């Protein structure tokens, strides 16, 4: 049964206290889980329930890391809920759900060389994915994981991700000499540094970026793409039908007529095949 459980906060720090030039509005929270907490897959998220119950809705946040009895979430302070979350102290308790959503699929597709494509906060689930793949080195095709990450502001947590990737191309409007393989522009510019043919792309970030990567990848040979979407959610469990996304039921690119089906980002997703998503303009 999907459950809501109380967890204890071990650490709740802004990046400014974790790494040099770290953003003071992006936080990494580590929480201690009770025994019996469900396993999770990279790409899944948890609902975070705020202690101030007038903030009724849970905040769905991707899992940044999950090991032993610890779960880590990366979040930016963008509204009232995340602002409140950022004030919680060590040893305070908070309620979260068990892991939700489908997660990235590493098995059913014909998984080739892996390229992680992230934009800003989108690197959160990709960190968990990279670490998880790294642990499975013996599985063919998983030895060589590359990443292309774009940032609007200061790049963050690169040292963490680089533990698990063979190359990490960082894209920024203001490239920094101190960062190895930093190119000017966005992730599409970063793709020029990497051979994308015969790759499996795992992508998370702002919608315009996901759309751009999806369109770009359609012109590359033998590539498949999984995108992690986000949408304003109600329950997060698939009951309220608040978070739907429109998909093509027939993802044959040669077919003009697509029947449109709607799926729930919280339960059928948040990960979908990039070529199935009908992108907003």
């Amino acid at each position, binding site marked *: *049964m*999907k459950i*809501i459980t109380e967890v204890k906060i071990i650490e709740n720090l802004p990046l400014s206290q974790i790494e040099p030039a770290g953003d003071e509005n992006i936080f990494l929270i580590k929480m201690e889980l009770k025994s019996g907490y469900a396993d999770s897959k990279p790409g899944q998220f948890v609902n975070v*329930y705020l202690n101030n*119950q*007038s*903030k*009724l*809705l*849970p905040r769905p946040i991707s899992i940044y890391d999950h090991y032993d009895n610890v779960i880590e979430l990366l979040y930016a302070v963008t509204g009232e*809920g995340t602002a409140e979350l950022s004030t919680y102290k060590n040893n305070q308790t908070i309620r979260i759900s068990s892991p939700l959503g489908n997660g990235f699929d590493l098995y059913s597709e014909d998984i080739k060389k892996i390229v992680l494509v992230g934009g800003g906060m989108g690197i959160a689930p990709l960190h968990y994915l990279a670490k998880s793949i790294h642990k499975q080195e013996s599985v063919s095709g998983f030895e060589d994981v590359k990443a292309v990450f774009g940032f609007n502001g200061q790049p963050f947590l690169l040292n963490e991700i680089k533990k698990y990737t063979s190359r990490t191309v960082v894209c920024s409007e203001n490239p920094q000499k101190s960062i190895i393989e930093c190119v000017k522009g966005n992730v599409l510019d970063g793709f020029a540094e990497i051979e994308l043919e015969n790759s499996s792309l795992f992508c998370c970030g702002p919608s315009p970026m996901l759309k751009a990567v999806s369109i770009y990848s359609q012109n590359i040979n033998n590539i498949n793409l999984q995108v992690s979407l986000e*949408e*304003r*959610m*109600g*329950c997060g*469990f*698939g*009951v*309220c*039908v*608040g*978070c*739907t*996304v429109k998909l093509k039921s027939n993802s044959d690119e040669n077919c003009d007529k697509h029947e*449109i089906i*709607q799926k729930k980002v919280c*339960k059928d997703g948040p990960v979908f095949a990039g070529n199935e998503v009908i992108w907003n303009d």
Partner: protein
Amino acid sequence: MIDLSVNIGGIRWNNPITTASGTFSPFDSKELYDYSKLGAVTTKGVSIVPWIGNETPRIAEASSGMLNAVGLENPGVDSYLNNDIPFLTESLVGAECKIITNVAGHSEDDYIKAVTKLNTCDHINMLEINVSCPNISQGGMSFGTDSKAVFKLTDKLKKETDKPLIIKLTPNVTDICEIAVAAEEAGADAISLINTLSAMRIDIEKAKSVLANTKGGLSGPAVKPVALRMVYDVSNVVNIPIIGMGGISSGNDAVEFFMAGASAIAVGTAALITPDAPIRILKELEEYMNVHNYKKIDDIPAI
């Protein structure tokens, strides 16, 4: 021994708690709690043809509440009868839980066609008519804001089915008692209220409404005082049973609604936030009755 059973429109419910339409899914809720223990389950509004609902974002937060503009996305009556009902009846084997099908429509004809089809299904115990829908065939005003429209619709639907009819009222009216009386006079077997309050939220950075549909419906604890007042008012003008709902999050909240005149209650938003809310509220209600030595729901005094 406490007897929690109630009789709503001739149908016996084991206990007076049902799910509020739109907050319960036979398939998805099954993983969250054992809904077979409830007096009844009310399913999401179903229409004669599939509705795709509104554009997203469909959800926004309000202080102690939520706004939704889901737009009654549903797979249509045929799919409901072929998929939801078999799954539901399977899930309820051995339980006393009753099935209430909520019906939506954009014209009288829509409702009539839907009710006619649903009438053929023996597993459905009651029908709840959602009159908050805009009457698109008549200019778009919601049925439920016009007592004559509610009377006409109820009267016509009563002729299409022997199943008890619950008319679910919208609170977005000047005088909810007038609407309730019209429903009763037309032959409604019960009344449920309230549906959501018309509301909105604005994103001040983007300078536009948060909901793609601009407006939505407010539900949750924020509406409870309004819902309670409306149940109280309506209970003073009709004799048929009232199913009260609006922000019920605890057994104590439920008791308030019984005291206001409700015969049964529905749990909605609370179940979206804490999935086991309907079951927890049932337990809390039972505890309240124990403590006050009430043996049956009728023992709870109406004010």
